[in-house]
């Protein structure tokens, strides 16, 4: 049975698409047939982060409207086997996402995939609601900053009250916290909320902490999910996150500041 996972946050710019790309890539790397869907109709980004923007012919809305079939629209990833991308439409708006249409497409995808990752747009309007409505599990992406945490709290409330599972009285959507752009030194100084602060406010299990990293920006611009960047802290953190999601019990890394050794201070490095 396929699992539908929404990657959501409420607030924009916190790392939803970065997380969706790396999470889906990580699941596929580990052998699971995975598709990642861009729900940000009109502001298509996922294809850029995944580096497949030049191969987009048909999109999610075309399928909803019956203008193309799934096989025409699904883009097969060139690096990782069993990973597919379903891009958003850039020329339409979120009103094109109908509940019936989204449900039909998800049901079709469930026939051939094990994990369906829904990359939600920011906000709490139609696009975000459609992305989370059919979810079985949710990755709630938060930055260690008060407005981001509050918006995540809002999204958690919506997951608990307006998802299909909530409306039909089924077991609730399973919630996971992803704390992205974390800088332990700044949390220690009190510039940022600490991991404990965020957990105290949101009260959901922590799936992973992604450290603030230059690699994320670089890999985004290069169209490579950061999880594929060897030697990157953020990539390693996403690797751990995927393993934890699949049931491995791994300690959290990158949550305490490391004192720089003498050589490191001398020669820089990160």
């Amino acid at each position, binding site marked *: 049975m396929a699992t539908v996972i929404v990657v959501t946050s409420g607030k924009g710019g916190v790392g939803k698409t970065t997380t969706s790309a790396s999470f889906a890539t990580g699941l596929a790397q580990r052998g699971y047939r995975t598709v990642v869907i861009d729900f940000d109709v009109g502001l298509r980004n996922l294809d850029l982060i995944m580096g497949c923007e030049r191969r987009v012919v048909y999109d999610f809305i075309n399928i909803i409207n019956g203008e193309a079939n799934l096989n025409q629209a699904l883009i097969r990833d060139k690096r990782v086997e069993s990973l597919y991308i379903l891009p958003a439409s850039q020329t339409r708006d979120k009103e094109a996402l109908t509940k019936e249409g989204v449900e039909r497409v998800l049901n079709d995808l469930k026939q051939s995939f094990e994990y369906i990752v829904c990359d939600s747009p920011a906000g*709490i309007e139609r696009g975000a609601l459609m992305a989370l409505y059919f979810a079985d599990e949710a990755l709630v992406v938060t930055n260690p900053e008060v407005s981001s945490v*509050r*918006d995540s*709290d*809002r999204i*958690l*409330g*919506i997951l*608990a*009250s307006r998802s299909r599972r909530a409306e039909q009285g089924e077991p609730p959507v399973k919630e996971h916290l992803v704390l992205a752009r974390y800088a332990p030194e700044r949390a220690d100084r009190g510039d940022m909320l600490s991991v404990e602060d965020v957990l105290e*406010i949101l*009260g959901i299990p922590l799936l992973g902490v992604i450290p603030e990293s230059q690699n994320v920006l670089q890999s985004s611009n290069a169209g490579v999910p950061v999880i594929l960047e060897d030697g990157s802290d953020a990539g390693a953190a996403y690797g751990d996150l995927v393993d934890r999601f699949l049931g491995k019990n791994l300690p959290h890394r990158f949550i305490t500041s490391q004192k720089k050794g003498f050589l490191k201070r001398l020669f820089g490095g990160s």
Partner: protein
Amino acid sequence: MLLQSPRFTGEDNPPFELKGSLFTLTVLHLFHPDRAAIERHLVEKIKQAPGFFSNTPVVIDLDGVVNSPDGVDFSGLYELLRRHGMVPVGIRNGSPELQTSARQAGLPTLPESRATGATRKPERVEPVHSRIFSHPVRSGQQIYAPDGDLIVLGTVSAGAEVIADGNIHIYGALRGRALAGVKGDVEPRIFCQSLEAELVSIAGRYRISEQIDPADRGKAMQIHLVEDRLIIEHLTR
């Protein structure tokens, strides 16, 4: 006095004592005042169960003959019932006119029991329903308990609102707004395990975050109204 000599029979000893007691009595529901018809049916009944009536006290229920135009001949009815082994001890229900003529025949009116008639069922007391919310109340959510108390087992996040006509109990931190007694009742209180509220209000009297003593923040507190003033005090002493 518990101990009393059996020989002691002074004039102070009253000859009787009045006490209330409950009895189960047979009630004869009268539907028609025609004595001949009553007698006919009585004989029939006694034939079926001889010896059923032997000085059996009965109460005559007059509900069925209230609209009888001729009234009821109570003396005649009394005689008739006695002849067949029943001892009428009083009447129940009936119009004031019927009750008066019954009294003249020596039959007192018994107080109406609450169990008589389908229309006189005991009033059902509707229990006040508490609303129990077992999840965290997230930012942007509003939970209202009309006509009762609201019990929240989790935390009330900043930007969330919990509202009740009665009391509000929060078994987590209160970081959002809590408004008790919103229909104007001044009695309800707000209880929380950690007071970090944006706003607390009882019956429209409110305090916002910056009007709450910083020393009280993060503590288990209760909030109530005393003479129109909001009092915030520690839950545990």
